[in-house]
């Protein structure tokens, strides 16, 4: 028959080419899966700090893999060596692939040299989540903070990444800020590179 291509069967799954595949997944499916992830972790821990750490660890694993995939697909195996380079990579490419849009803003911290902030009006993972009052400042965006930490760590820019709610005047819902604090060695290397 005309037009029927032959699909080459690969004996080893590692030999298969990294196809682009379907770009989009149902938001509801992801929301339910993420909700279950949070609920499962809630049963395993005693306090909120531990829950936040677990979500971050889950995100870390995602971040490391996303970096590998994106370096192969989008960047042609080129490595980022400069701080601003890796930050704009996270801010645009990673966000585009994961959430379908670039992050709202990338800012440098005014108080400390080693702090940078990625802000978003509302994180995709938080879209359907209302934090109960008794959980205080807990933010499920810790998962996204973990993803960012995973990407930065695997790229050679160790950092401490946290997610915060920042209340905005005139808005009912607070903005979310991912705060990235780079390690000493990163700043020293950056200074050396000029």
């Amino acid at each position, binding site marked *: 028959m005309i037009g029927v291509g032959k699909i080459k069967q690969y004996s080893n799954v590692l030999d298969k080419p990294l196809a682009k595949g379907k770009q989009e997944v149902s938001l509801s499916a992801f929301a339910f899966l993420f*909700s279950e992830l*949070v609920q499962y972790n809630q049963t395993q821990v005693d306090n909120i700090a531990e829950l936040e750490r677990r979500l971050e660890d889950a995100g870390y694993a995602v971040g490391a893999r996303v970096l590998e995939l994106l370096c192969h697909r989008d960047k042609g195996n080129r490595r980022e060596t400069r701080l601003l380079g890796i930050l704009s990579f996270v801010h645009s490419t990673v966000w585009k692939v994961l959430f379908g849009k670039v992050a709202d803003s990338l800012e440098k911290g005014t108080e400390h040299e080693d702090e940078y902030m990625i802000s978003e009006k509302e994180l995709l993972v938080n879209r*359907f*989540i*209302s*934090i*109960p009052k008794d*959980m205080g400042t807990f933010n*499920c965006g810790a998962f996204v903070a973990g993803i960012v930490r995973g990407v930065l760590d695997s790229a050679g820019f160790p950092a401490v990444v946290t997610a915060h709610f920042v209340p905005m005047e005139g808005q*009912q819902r607070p903005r979310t800020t991912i705060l990235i604090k780079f390690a000493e060695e990163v700043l020293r290397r950056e200074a050396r590179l000029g």
Partner: protein
Amino acid sequence: MSLFLFILVISRFFSIFFLQIPLDMAAIYSLYIINKSGGLIFHKDYGSAGRMDTNDSLRVASLWHSMHAISQQLSPVVGCSGIELLEADTFDLHCFQSLTGTKFFVVSEPGTQHMESLLKVIYELYTDYVLKNPFYEIEMPIRCELFDIHLTQAIQKDRVALTGR
């Protein structure tokens, strides 16, 4: 014949709770959400008159749950899914039951249009902001900020569309 009388008696009974002279012409008087075992999980009053305290609203909810179940049995039509509309002198009660048995009912001004579609919108908000919330326990009272915010917006939009203001 007896079914007719039954419905009449029930609407009189409900009138005792909902009898009110609308002062601000709100199209919707109140919204209730009942879980599948008949417990009230959400209640919001919009009218300015005829407000009940918590105990009364709990009673009304379980009353309606039983009524709904009884009507399914009483119906002369096979495969009836329960009461969808109750019309009385001073109010209308529109009820929507999801496939899982959760009931959404709204008490409104007599003759208000488009309540069914409003109930469907509220059901969608429920599935989005309540069921996808990891901190919500199924069948428990709803305490989700996002649900409240979006519900208010939906009711507001509906009110503007209905009354033109």
